[in-house]
């Protein structure tokens, strides 16, 4: 079963990519691929952020609003006064860690606390940027537009995100312990760990990747508005599950999460290449999500019977 966990997302992405190239051979080029996956970079970062939360058995309904806020901070303070901008980003990450600690210490339902926080993040974003605007810092735009040889930026970025988070969450000792929080928190308490600190750490990880998602998004769009990333909340949850993650038990895969985000992004492009009306783009994402999860169920049932 553990092998399938990563196999299935990979196969889903490969099938979808193959179909896209078959429908639209011109997409099989440096620029075509970049175009297909460009917007996937911030989504992948947001999905990784959501994964940090799901890893410790919680769920984050505020990540979309949080990424929007980070985007607004990037397009205003980080551009105008980089030091203040960086301090603000650090404060946002700390706020996330605090949210995790409070949720654990008071035994609050994460779904409601993050719901409330989504209003707070959204309000702060509106406060910063009441109307769409701002500007991306030059260096950030340069990074997002860089053209590495052979492989387009979007692919390099996706590989980088997947690699780094894999090291952090799967390979590193502390990441392993964090996954243990999702698996059996009592075992960690028995082994002498402070579960509240660990949860705060997981939330801080989510905050970090949320901030990065906001920055990447502004680097691509060059401007921000307070609602720019609201749909990331649902996309990120779907991406984690599509990538082989589960809501409980600390079973997540960072590489799978990145692939899940790519698959969701590609699903939209694929349908537009099929010259199916753009009306169905969103629906196609839903249908693909259901299809992949059905495939996973069939694999799991096989695993049970053998």
């Amino acid at each position: 079963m553990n092998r399938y966990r990563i196999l299935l997302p990979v196969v889903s992405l490969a099938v979808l990519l193959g179909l896209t190239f078959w429908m639209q051979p011109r997409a099989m080029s440096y620029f075509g691929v970049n175009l297909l996956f460009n917007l996937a970079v911030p989504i992948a970062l947001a999905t990784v952020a959501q994964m940090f939360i799901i890893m410790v058995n919680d769920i984050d309904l505020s990540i979309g609003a949080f990424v929007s806020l980070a985007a607004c901070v990037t397009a205003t303070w980080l551009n105008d006064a980089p030091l203040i901008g960086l301090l603000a980003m650090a404060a946002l990450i700390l706020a996330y860690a605090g949210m995790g600690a409070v949720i654990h210490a008071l035994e609050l339902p994460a779904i409601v606390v993050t719901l409330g926080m989504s209003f707070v993040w959204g309000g702060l974003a509106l406060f910063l940027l009441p109307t769409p605007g701002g500007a991306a810092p030059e260096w950030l735009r340069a990074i997002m537009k860089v053209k590495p040889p052979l492989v387009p930026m979007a692919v390099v970025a996706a590989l980088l995100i997947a690699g780094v988070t894999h090291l952090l969450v799967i390979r590193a000792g502390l990441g392993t312990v964090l996954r243990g929080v999702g698996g059996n928190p009592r075992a960690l308490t028995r082994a002498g760990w402070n579960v509240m600190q660990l949860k705060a750490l997981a939330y801080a990880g989510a905050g970090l990747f949320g901030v990065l998602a906001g920055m990447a998004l502004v680097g691509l769009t060059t401007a921000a508005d307070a609602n720019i990333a609201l749909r990331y909340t649902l996309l990120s949850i779907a991406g984690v599950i599509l990538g082989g993650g589960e809501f409980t038990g600390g079973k997540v895969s960072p590489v799978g999460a990145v692939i899940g985000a790519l698959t969701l992004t590609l699903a939209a492009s694929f349908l537009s290449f099929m010259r199916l009306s753009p009306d169905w783009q969103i629906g196609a994402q839903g249908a693909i999500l259901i299809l992949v999860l059905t495939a996973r169920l069939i694999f799991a049932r096989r695993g049970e019977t053998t």
Partner: protein
Amino acid sequence: MSLAGMTSKPWIWAWAAAALAFAATLVLTQGRGAGELAYAALSFGAFAAIVGLGQMLVITLGPGNVDLSIPATMTLAATLALKFMGSDPGTALPGLAIALAVGLGVGAANFALIFLLRLPPIIATLAASLIYQSLAIWSNRGLRIKPPTGLAEFATGRFLGLPNVAWVGLALALMVWVLLERSLWGRWLLASGQNLRAARLAGVPVEAVRAATYLAVAVFAALAGYLLASFSGGAALNMGAEYLLMSIAVVVIGGSSIAGGNSNVPGVWGAALFMFLVVSMLNSYGAAAGVRNVLTGTIIIAIVIAASSRRARI
């Protein structure tokens, strides 16, 4: 009433908060416009209350149960109903039937995904809602169809001084309250939400209860969509968007337990009024949209923390 009696009726807090917001607004206007404010709160609160009642039933089923497809269901039901009615007079009732049928279909589809594919409700309703959204976009095609005149007049009209939509919302609240307090099905739902395994072992038909609940929430959302489109002169693709968070917020503020098994019908109405009144209060004090949202979020979290410490004291 003793303090213990107060805290055992958590809906009092939502109503007190709503009254406070109402009073704070009137302080500014020196009492003028009280009637208009109350009327507006009842009109707009009705939609939040109707979807909130549905969401409350699902949340009562216990941890992990939530319907994220409410906005898409509202939009789809409204779009299909309006398209069928095509502004023709006399089509209001068949249009209502279409909307309710959409609700039933959506609920059945959601539960099929949850039951047959064993998907977690969050992900099942999320994935399905994307499809409903596309269906709505596809069938709407950017047209803005006006509701039949009679229906629009009903949706914006009043009866005995109260908005008609509020009467609908109140009637539904009464129905849900009776269902929960007096009916067999309500007992089964409350038992399943407290402890699904114990309910199954006590002979409660838990799968049937879950199915009926997911049908109910979708029908409520469909009805809210139908009324909202009639009220605001047509269906819009983003008409349901704010009701996703709203539906969960009114349930929690209303005093229902997010852990399930304990629902609170009066609280949903109180919270729905509060959510409208707090915004209009902040508006009348000249608060910008940003401040409004920050305060709303802070209030939601404060209420959750208060509710959890109340639980701890018992």
